């Protein structure tokens, strides 16, 4: 009973997707441009990718971004997982709604505000700005994404599974690592990938919290674009887009695959039993 694609549907689909993806497509396309002029097509070439690798400033920024992304998403995942667990497990108490609301707040907080307040804090405790401060800033804002992902997984988690482990003589801490964590692992992994990609492409917060000698890739790209777009920038941006896309795809695949496999196996078992 599938509805056919009416001309109207096709037009809106094409318009919607071109609106979303045409600019990115152009960027990818021009990164393979032979000509130095970004707007004129001079034939296919990968030479700008070579240029990019030889550009030390760009590579340093990329390396810095990668380091920050890995460290911050790892810490954000640990903290966010704990927060997500606690939000579900801590029965009801006074002001619980306020607390769970506060977890979501950073999601909707304007980035400028988050960046500014972090900057003020770092200045107040006179922490030298650089790798450390950017990482801390990224942990703060991506942690709540992890918390939300883990929390939504925990809502459907059957707590009697943990009770069964306790009952069989497994102390609480070991129960967490041998039973709870493996079961919620897909959520934790997608939380990690999500905060990794968030950290990769953050510009605003990084600009507030970075110091001299700690430029991230988005900052680098932004500043060089002001001096004029070079195909080199297109090349590195294409790689960034690719990385983020892969991250998001893997994150959603990981969380979907489990349910799909599960559903399939359940159908098989049910069919067998009859």
């Amino acid at each position, binding site marked *: 009973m599938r509805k056919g694609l009416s001309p109207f549907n096709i037009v809106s689909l094409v318009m919607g997707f071109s609106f979303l993806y045409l600019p990115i497509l152009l960027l990818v396309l021009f990164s393979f441009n032979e000509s130095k002029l970004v707007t004129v097509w001079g034939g296919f070439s990968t030479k700008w990718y070579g240029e990019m690798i030889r550009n030390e400033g760009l590579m340093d920024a990329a390396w810095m971004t990668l380091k920050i992304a890995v460290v911050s998403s790892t810490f954000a995942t640990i903290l966010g997982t704990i927060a997500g667990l606690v939000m579900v497990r801590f029965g009801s108490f006074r002001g619980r709604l306020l607390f769970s609301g506060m977890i979501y707040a950073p999601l909707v907080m304007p980035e400028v505000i988050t960046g500014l307040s972090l900057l003020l804090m770092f200045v107040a405790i006179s922490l030298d700005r650089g790798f450390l401060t950017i990482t801390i800033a990224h942990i703060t804002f991506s942690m709540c994404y992890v918390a939300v992902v883990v929390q939504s997984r925990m809502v459907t988690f*059957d707590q*009697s*599974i943990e*009770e*069964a*482990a*306790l*009952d*069989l*003589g*497994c*102390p*609480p801490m*070991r129960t967490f690592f041998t*039973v709870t964590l*493996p*079961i919620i692992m897909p959520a934790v992994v997608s939380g990690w990938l999500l905060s990794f990609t968030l950290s990769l492409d953050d510009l605003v917060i990084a600009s507030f919290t970075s110091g001299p000698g700690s430029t991230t890739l988005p900052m680098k790209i932004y500043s060089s674009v002001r001096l004029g777009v070079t195909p080199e920038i297109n090349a590195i941006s294409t790689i960034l887009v690719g990385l983020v896309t892969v991250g998001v795809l893997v994150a959603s695949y990981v969380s979907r695959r489990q349910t799909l496999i*599960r559903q399939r*196996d*359940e159908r*098989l*078992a*049910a069919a*067998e*039993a009859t």
Partner: protein
Amino acid sequence: MMTAIPSGNNRQTTVEAWKDPSQEPYIRLENVTKKFGDFTAVDNISLDIFKSEFFSLLGPSGCGKTTLLRMLAGFEQPTSGRILLDGEDMSKVPPYLRPVNMMFQSYALFPHMNVEKNIAFGLKQDGVPSPEIKTRVDEVISMVQLEQFAKRKPHQLSGGQRQRVALARSLVKKPKMLLLDEPLGALDKKLRTRTQFELMNIQEETGITFVIVTHDQEEAMTVSSRIAVMDHGRIIQTATPTEIYEVPNSRYVANFLGEVNIFEGRVAENARDHVLIQSQEAGCTIRADHGIDAADGATVWVAVRPEKMYINLEAPDDPNTNCMTGQVWDIGYLGNLSIYHIKLDSGTMVTMARTNKERVVERKITWDDRVYVTWAPDAGVVLLS
């Protein structure tokens, strides 16, 4: 030593345990109450369960059976009252240190481990050497007939298979006490009967104390040393299966286990060795061969099981035999039994059962016959509530 009890003999000793005042109970519940907010799930229960008993909890849905088990396992703390296990107060002992294993009503299998690993989990926690784990796991797997599913994950199993994994997982540790929450509900009749006997064998061999929740009264009658019938968080009666069936203490218990005919009446004469009850519902004066603790004129109920009644075309000779008159309303043929529904002259419907000893070719008693329904004075029970 729990393993020192010789098998076979064991059921005999357990039968005596609760009547012997010198026996120490293995589990003692003292005025245990559990409240969830305003709701009282378990209401002031005091109960002694003895070593090597096969104790059943029977009751309608929501009467607090699971809550009671969860308190024994340590997942819930009583709101008031105490639980003693082997004389030791359990309130400070966390679940993972109690010598108790529970089989969950929802099975609670570990979804990321296969059947073997699920069952081996408890043994691993105790640091049992792996060759021994292997033999013990294989043993229970074959007991619950899951050999060909050993490598499967729980979501690749049917409901009944999962239930058997849960059962195996709780059995394999051979704890001092096993709590089984409806362990056989999802199994078909044949497998269920087999597993029931298997459980009884395990119990006799190991002397484990079993506390089992079930909805199936036949199952409770078969396996239990004693049964507690619960209602709304309270225990109404605790007794052996025979006592529960033959001498229920209330209409609730009589109705809960099996079919029963109940006649309301007033005490007309209460002597030491018999009581006469004037009953309008029965349309006669009922005689029972045991004295009761009620004043003349008090309202009581007489409970008679269908199989303890007889149906005749002539009035009985013995004047002491209880006798009611009526008309055959309906006959149900069940193969081994025939069920007669008889409408008494008083208007009450009575159910009675007759074993079909001869092949039913032509019934002597058939629809619309006028009949006498009789039962001996010692066949009924007089209930005060």
